[in-house]
């Protein structure tokens, strides 16, 4: 087989491997073997019509860029970004907004309750986004979870704003 074609296949498969790192070992093996098998099927089918390198180039073009071979990667990035923002938000809430003891006990208790609710909703939202990873994007459950997340986010923003305003007023 043409050396250049082999190199091109190897380079493409390396790219695919990088983009599916987050999948299980079994799934990764299945992906790589499926692509390999598809490329060799194309070579066998189009032999004599085009050169090996041309067949591989065309087939890779048809398969799409290696970094986009798995749509789950995009979802995983979305999830990671979303979770990271929420975790930062959560740490912020836990360390900055839990009211100091000098504040009168009434307001202090109220602020604590608000902070606890905010933390709970944030944790629920993180759990929901991880659940979304396992669900088909086109299913109705996915959409319902998505709406629920938006509602929770809106509640969190209101809670966050209330806590911030209350602390500013007290100070």
């Amino acid at each position, binding site marked *: 087989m043409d050396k250049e074609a082999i190199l091109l296949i190897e380079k493409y498969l390396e790219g695919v491997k990088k983009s599916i790192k987050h999948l299980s070992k079994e799934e990764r093996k299945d992906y790589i073997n499926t692509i390999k*098998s*598809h490329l060799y099927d194309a070579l066998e*089918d189009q032999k004599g019509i085009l050169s090996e390198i041309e067949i591989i180039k065309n087939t890779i073009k048809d398969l799409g860029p290696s970094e986009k071979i798995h749509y789950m990667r995009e979802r995983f990035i979305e999830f990671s970004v979303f979770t990271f923002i929420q975790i930062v938000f959560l740490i912020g809430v836990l360390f900055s907004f839990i009211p100091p003891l000098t504040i009168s006990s009434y307001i202090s208790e109220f602020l604590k309750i608000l902070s606890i609710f905010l933390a709970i909703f944030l944790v629920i939202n993180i759990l929901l986004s991880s659940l979304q990873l396992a669900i088909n994007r086109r299913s109705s459950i996915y959409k319902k979870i998505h709406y629920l997340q938006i509602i929770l986010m809106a509640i969190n923003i209101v809670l966050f704003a209330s806590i911030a305003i209350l602390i500013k007023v007290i100070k």
Partner: protein
Amino acid sequence: MYNTQYSNLVFFISKSKNSSEQIINNWIKQLRKGILELAILSYVKNKESKTYGYELIKNMKNNNINIDSNTMYPILRRLEKSKLIESLWKTQNNQPRKLFKITEEGKFILSELRKEWNIFYRNTNKIINKEN
């Protein structure tokens, strides 16, 4: 003045042409979405021996259904995940291939979907192709 009006007209025509093309493309995409899965499931069922990805793409193309590999494989994965088809790796001509076969559940769902499709097609066709 005339030139400005003319260039505006050209811009409007090209813009509306682009948006019509976009609308048509979106419609085709929507129409193809569900139907492709039905066609692939039907092909897997009708094929007496087990079939594989490349063969499926080629046969779809032979039937004037253009489908890319990056559309076909996710569909096959979805069908497999829903347990409508099952797969096994086998070496054919010194080459490992993932072979697909329809499951009993897949056969049942396909027969129900075929009935629905035929009714839907007949009824919508009457409306769509009705000429005054």
